[in-house]
């Protein structure tokens, strides 16, 4: 059930960002500086962070590079330099990798109670916590995307 809610929001964020050109994907709804391209790249990084880096203890993926060295909001601000095709293809690759990590975690005897390899504030999150967290993180950003998208072309309920 947790995975089906996560998959629902993965599909939602793609619906909210598709059919737009590069300028629209880089258009904020002031006063916030968030953009739809930024939301998509942020969630790509969020998936990678929780499954690759926290759950499995792996380093940042190659596509991140040293982006965060100069800009703590790198994934948000750099999205304007990526095409929609690149943003989506990278997103799909990262989601596939994260699903494989999740499959392996859920196949362990601990399942949803399996603890992450990297601590958060000194404690270790369970796979269950990570999944519920991702659902609510996606949903909150989908809320941001709702208002940004409506301002761009009037589309709602995507």
């Amino acid at each position, binding site marked *: 059930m947790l995975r089906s809610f996560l998959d629902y929001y993965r599909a939602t964020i793609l619906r909210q960002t598709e059919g737009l050109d590069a300028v629209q994907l880089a258009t904020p709804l002031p*006063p916030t500086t968030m953009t739809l391209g930024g939301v998509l790249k942020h969630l790509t990084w969020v998936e990678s962070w929780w499954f690759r880096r926290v759950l499995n203890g792996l380093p940042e993926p190659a596509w991140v590079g040293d982006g965060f060295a100069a800009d703590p909001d790198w994934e948000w601000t750099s999205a304007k330099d990526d095409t929609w095709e690149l943003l989506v293809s990278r997103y799909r690759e990262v989601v596939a990798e994260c699903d494989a990590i999740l499959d392996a975690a859920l196949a362990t005897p601990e399942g949803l109670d399996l603890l992450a390899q990297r601590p958060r504030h000194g404690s270790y999150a369970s796979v269950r916590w990570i999944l519920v967290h991702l*659902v609510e993180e996606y949903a909150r950003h989908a809320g941001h995307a709702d208002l940004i998208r409506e301002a761009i072309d009037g589309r709602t309920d995507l």
Partner: protein
Amino acid sequence: MATQRTDPPLAASEVDTLRAYLAYHRDTMRRKTEGLDQAQLSQVHPPSTLTLGGLLKHAALNDDWWFCRVFEGRETEPDWVPAGAFDEDEDWELSSARDDSPAELRRIFDETAAAADAAIDRALAKDGLDTLSVTPSRREGTPFSLRWIILHMIEEYARHNGHADMLREAVDGQVGE
């Protein structure tokens, strides 16, 4: 901010994890709407017609709908909904909030959340998260488990808190999780 909020425990049982996230998002909505007057709670961020006051009333309606009406089967509207309100305006809870004082909106929100929590408590004392709703899904004809309803309410609250993030920043510049 007056409302204290607790981060959900990192490694807890299913029921404790779900309830902690539901509480977290209710508290987040309280924080996003705190310290504002009636005009600020009624302010829109065009082209959206949503308001922070409307979100409070909508969240209360959702808590009442899912936990008291669908899950426990109560057939009547809550006492704060006037007879026939939705016949004239299907978005009544969103549009009527501008006529309510901040204190009234918070009272509706808090009392409904408490009633929803009491419904959860009653179910957990019996069959836990597998307890099925009295009212079935209109689309599929099958009942909802309490597990599904709580998870749905977490994502529903979270999405509306995303709206609230945008609205609050536009009202007075305040941001944050």
